[in-house]
């Protein structure tokens, strides 16, 4: 009876109590260590396989990566110019703050066993500067956000988790909306958009920066379907996340630092 009461009280009253959260935080690290031990044979095998890669394959890959790097560098030259131009405009408009985004590279080490949620564990934590609320990016676009950090590992929720929602805007028209997770790994939903809104299949959704959680301008999803039924006030829009949420292990965590020219 007592234990049952303890369960219920911890669920309904003390769920965010600092002590409870502290226990959960330390558990993240311990669980991650245990996972590491369990996966050690798999990792060792992968490393062996990588070491067996033939020399020519590696050379090919180096060549490909060098080319890719050159292209990216070229693009980023242009980006630097654009950023400074943008900063000047913002200064002209007396915009409140300039925000620099610093990136921390991390790896997804595990997926939470709870099948109703889309939660992953990444291998960077408080000691690396990863904190609750920071955005997590994949190679192509936004993936999710950090919800709890241990010292060396963190837990992050993906944007498709069915209790996750984020403010987006349509890149083409600037229309703002809320993209909710559907619980399916390849689908986001926008429910409450007036039926006459300017949104089409193929539109790119980017973060709008409203709400202050995600910085603006990061690509999130591409609209795959717009259903407008007769007599309904709202259109039902489905979109597909741009980054492959269930593939790949390398992610970036955005560390926001407010630029020095803030609050002019």
């Amino acid at each position, binding site marked *: 009876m007592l*234990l*049952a009461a*303890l*369960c*219920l009280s*911890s*669920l*309904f009253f003390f*769920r965010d109590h600092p002590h*409870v959260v502290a*226990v*959960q935080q330390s*558990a*993240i690290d311990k*669980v991650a260590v*245990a*996972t590491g031990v*369990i*996966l050690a044979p*798999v990792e060792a095998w992968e490393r062996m396989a990588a070491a067996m890669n033939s020399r020519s394959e590696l050379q090919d890959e180096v060549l490909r990566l060098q080319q890719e790097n050159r292209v990216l560098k070229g693009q980023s030259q242009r980006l630097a110019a654009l950023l400074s131009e943008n900063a000047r405009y913002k200064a002209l408009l007396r915009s409140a703050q300039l925000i620099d985004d610093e990136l921390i590279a991390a790896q997804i080490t*595990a*997926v*939470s*066993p*709870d*099948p*109703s*949620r*889309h*939660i992953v564990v990444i291998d960077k934590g408080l000691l690396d500067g990863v904190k609750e609320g920071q955005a997590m990016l994949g190679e192509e676009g936004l993936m999710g956000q950090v919800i*709890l950090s241990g010292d060396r590992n963190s*837990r992050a929720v993906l944007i498709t*988790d*069915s*209790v996750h929602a984020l403010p987006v805007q349509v890149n083409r028209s600037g229309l703002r909306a809320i993209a909710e997770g559907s*619980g399916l*790994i390849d689908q986001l939903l926008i429910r409450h958009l007036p039926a006459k809104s300017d949104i089409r299949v193929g539109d790119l959704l980017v973060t709008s920066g409203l709400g202050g959680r995600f910085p603006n301008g990061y690509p999130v999803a591409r609209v795959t379907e717009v259903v407008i039924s007769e007599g309904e006030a709202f259109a039902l829009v489905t979109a597909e996340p741009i980054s492959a*949420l*269930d593939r790949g292990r390398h992610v970036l965590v955005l560390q926001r630092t407010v630029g020095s020219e803030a609050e002019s």
Partner: protein
Amino acid sequence: MEQARSSWVIYLSLACALLFMLLPFPLEWRVLRPDIASLALFYWVLALPHRVGVTTAFFLGLGQDLIEGSPIGLSSLGLMVSVLVLQSNYQRIRQFDGVQQSLMILVLLMLSSGLEQWLRNGIEMPNLPWMGFMGLLCSAGCWLVVREILRFFRRYYEVN
């Protein structure tokens, strides 16, 4: 004193069963992961009801919650209630043959996960998808295997 000799086997097996939750499963197939930890708990309750009971169920549930990252106490209540049911019927269930016992375990698993869903509703967490039922079936299917393995260890180390 004599009795408490091999209790480490119980706790070690439960810990190993918890570690099974950490094995990587593809995101879409996680639902089908058999719930080995609950099965191991049910086995020990069935075999040694005087040793393993509601308290163990409580701590096992805590362990599950910490591993899953769900709010603490979510899994415990369901496990505790089904262990209670099991404890009050263990003599009957011991007499069942394999299939009957698996069905009984399925019912117990449904009870515990049903309670968990009810709690999830209470704190507005997403419910399990309907495929979750398939996961319970998988778990019940693993019952006989788990039972044989744990029985071997129980006899080998003379846990009583």
